Every structure is written in structure tokens, then in C-alpha cells.
């Protein structure tokens, strides 16, 4: 079942003002750079973006924020981005902060047909406001709902023509769950290979979760915190 589209333009076709997008990545690691750049070019506005982070000022989702294309961010951590903080504190940008594990699980639930689940994370905090509390094994939990998106945009290391994806190292992060939770899931890959090239034992995201796949033109893969040790 061939999922290949020609380029990023064809891949993002149909994304419109006001839609909800999931965007994979953790910090700048494993983000769909080519798609984000093209979203800026498309100029779609009033987006709701579900993404663990909001990029930095001049890279990642920060680019969409700079261009004022985002109405609402749903994230777990949004430091490292001055423009973000400015828009949020001034009230221009709506922000919903979600515990990282709940965010990951809510995306998975959205893709897995689980409308809601109980988790201990956030009990007794702002996050629990308005949410049902129930005690299991003597411990209070809150009920969290599934998340889905009109489009999920993920980035993989390798992908085949049937949409099967393989991720590298910690660039996996949120990408597999978001791929599950998109009504339409777009995968941007570093290397597109023919079906049959990837070992079926080691597929991270089966092609059933992916509707469109393309090989990105270029990947900067910017490092957010370069930490090294010296050779002696």
C-alpha cells in the first residue's frame, strides 16, 4: 500500500487555518524540520499545536510562533523560547501545560481508541482542576482524556514506501504515539526505502498509522545543549 508523496508540499496538503496539529520531537531532537519550514511558507494560522516543547526562538515550532501562526500550544515544557514566553504572558498565546507522561499517554490513548484513563500524575495540582479524582489502591488518581489531531506530523530516521517507520536513538520520543493519534499522519524521513528493506521484526511504527510519507530535502538537526567532555 504505497503511501509515498512527492514532496513536503504534497505531504501537507489539506492543512488549514484553525486545525489541530500534533508535531513530534523532544526539544529540537526528532522534529519534522522540513514540514515545519513549509507550514511557515503555507502561512496557515490559528493552529492548535500539540507538541512536547515549543522549539527555540528561531528553530522548530519557534518559527511558527514567530510568524504568529499558533493560537494555542499544548505542551509539557516550553522553556528555552523567549518569544513564546512573551506571547504567553501577554495573553496572545493560549497555553495548556500537561505532565509529560500524561501527554504521551493521552496521545497513545487517542490512537488506541481508549477515550480516557486514570493516572496519578498531577493529583493535587492545577492540572487536576475540573478533573475526576478516584482512589485506586489507596492512591488518588485523575481521569485524563485521549488526544487526537487533524494531522500528526512526525519525523523518522528511515521509512519505507508502505509507511513503516524506524526511529534513531532518542529522536523517537513522541513520534510513535503522535503517528497513532493523527486522523491523517504525515511522516518525514531522512531515508525513504522500498517496502521489504526494513526488517519486519524491528518496525517502530507500522505503516497502518501513516497516511503520507516523504523524504525530507535537508535536515539541520540543530543541537540545543552541546555538552562534551575532553579527550583526556
Amino acid at each position, binding site marked *: 500500500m504505497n503511501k509515498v508523496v512527492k514532496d513536503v508540499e504534497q505531504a501537507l496538503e489539506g492543512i488549514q487555518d484553525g486545525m489541530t496539529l500534533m508535531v513530534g520531537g523532544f526539544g529540537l531532537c526528532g522534529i519534522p524540520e522540513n514540514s515545519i519550514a513549509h507550514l511557515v511558507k503555507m502561512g496557515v494560522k490559528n493552529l492548535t499545536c500539540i507538541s512536547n516543547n515549543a522549539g527555540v526562538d528561531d528553530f522548530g515550532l519557534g518559527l511558527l510562533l514567530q510568524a504568529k501562526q499558533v493560537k494555542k500550544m499544548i505542551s509539557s515544557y516550553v522553556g*528555552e523560547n523567549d518569544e513564546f514566553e512573551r506571547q504567553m504572558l501577554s495573553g496572545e498565546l493560549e497555553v495548556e501545560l500537561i505532565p509529560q507522561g500524561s501527554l*504521551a499517554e493521552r496521545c497513545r490513548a487517542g490512537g488506541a481508541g481508549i477515550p480516557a484513563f486514570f493516572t496519578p500524575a498531577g*493529583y493535587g495540582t492545577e492540572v487536576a482542576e475540573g478533573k475526576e479524582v478516584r482512589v485506586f489502591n489507596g492512591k488518588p488518581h485523575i481521569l485524563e482524556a485521549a488526544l487526537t489531531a487533524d494531522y500528526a506530523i512526525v519525523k523518522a530516521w528511515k521509512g519505507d514506501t508502505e509507511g513503516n517507520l524506524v526511529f534513531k536513538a532518542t529522536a523517537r520520543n513522541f513520534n510513535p504515539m503522535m503517528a497513532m493519534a493523527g486522523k491523517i499522519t504525515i511522516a518525514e524521513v531522512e531515508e525513504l526505502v522500498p517496502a521489504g528493506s526494513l526488517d519486519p521484526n524491528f518496525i517502530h511504527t507500522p505503516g497502518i498509522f501513516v497516511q503520507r510519507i516523504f523524504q525530507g530535502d535537508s535536515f539541520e538537526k540543530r*543541537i540545543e545543549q552541546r555538552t562534551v567532555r575532553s579527550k583526556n
Partner: protein
Amino acid sequence: MALDKTGIAKRIAQELRDGWYVNLGIGIPTLVANYIPEGIDVEFQSENGILGMGPFPFEGEEDPDLINAGKQTITVRNGASFFDSATSFAMIRGQHVQLTVLGAMEVSQNGDIANWKIPGKMVKGMGGAMDLVASAENIIVAMMHSNKAGESKILKACTLPLTGVGCVKKVVTELAVLEIKDGKFHLIERAPGVSVEEIISKTEGDLVVPDVVPEMQL
């Protein structure tokens, strides 16, 4: 004399037990990995999706696809594994991680912790901290006893928005090791050369002080 950050990390490292999986937060907690006691085998989990974290890479060997939860470039040890964020928090929520070490802005005497938000001022988000503190059986907070304004961070009740309730068991600061039990702080150890009086004066929360307070052995 009060400990520096390294000293706090060294003291916390003494809490590690053989065979534990450990999640270290950003800042002082990260340093704990440098002081694992001899004969103790622990494995570090980072919530962005790795078990078996190694040291920072040599210059020129950084891999942008290989980072920790602080977004720092890292390496892996033999026997490492990568996984997605849902699996990572399955490990955390499912209590497969034996110890969590993290920083805090405030800790209260009933074990509440606040470390993610200063209303109107700093709103970076909770990241994985709420999942970690809600789930871990064993949480150690690494922090300074007072904030920059000189006010105690060891409180009767937190004033900032909470990250978790009744979850912190132990706090290690530049002055002391405190245990939280029965709604009170208990002074367990003091930093070398630090007086019990100084600790009492810098602790706003109720503090139980035994007759003899041993010095930390670092």
C-alpha cells in the same frame, strides 16, 4: 562549611543502592551520576526515552539524535535501550524506576513539592516532574536551603503551585539532610562544619532535631 553543588550530589550518591534504576533531574541531580559509590551498579533512565545513559560525548562525537531530558548530548553504555515517551513514562508510573532525584523551589513538611511555576513570572511547564513525583516510591530533592532572597525553601506549606502532594521523603541541601515523616522535617545529618543552629534558623517548616546530629561523611 556549606556544601557546594558537587557536595550535594556526592551526598545524594550515597543513597544509591545496587541494582537500582534511577532518574536524575536537570541541574544538581545530573551531577549525581559522577559519584556512584564503588561496587554499586545503577542504571540511569532519562524520560525522553533512554535507559543506560553514559557520560557526555567526546568533542566532535556529539549525536543530535542522542540527548537526555535536559537536551544535553550524551552517550550510551553497553546494554542501553531506546524507547518512546509512552513506554518511558510506563516505566516511571509503573514504579520500575527505584529512585528519582530532582530539584525544587519549595518543599513542605508534609512532602509537597513545588518546582514548575511562578505565577505571572516563570511558566516553563512541568515537563516530566509531575509524573515522576506522583509515581516514584523514593524521591530525593536536591536543592538550596534558601532562595536568592534568603527565604527558606523548607516550609510549613508551599506557597507556589504544587508539582505533587505528600511525595517527598528526603531533602538534601547545602546544609543538611532532612527526612520527611509524620508531617515534619527531621534533621538527619548536617554538612561538615555547619551548626544545628544555622539549620534551624534557615528552616521555616517544623524541624525535629535529635540530641546528636552527625556530620555528613563525604
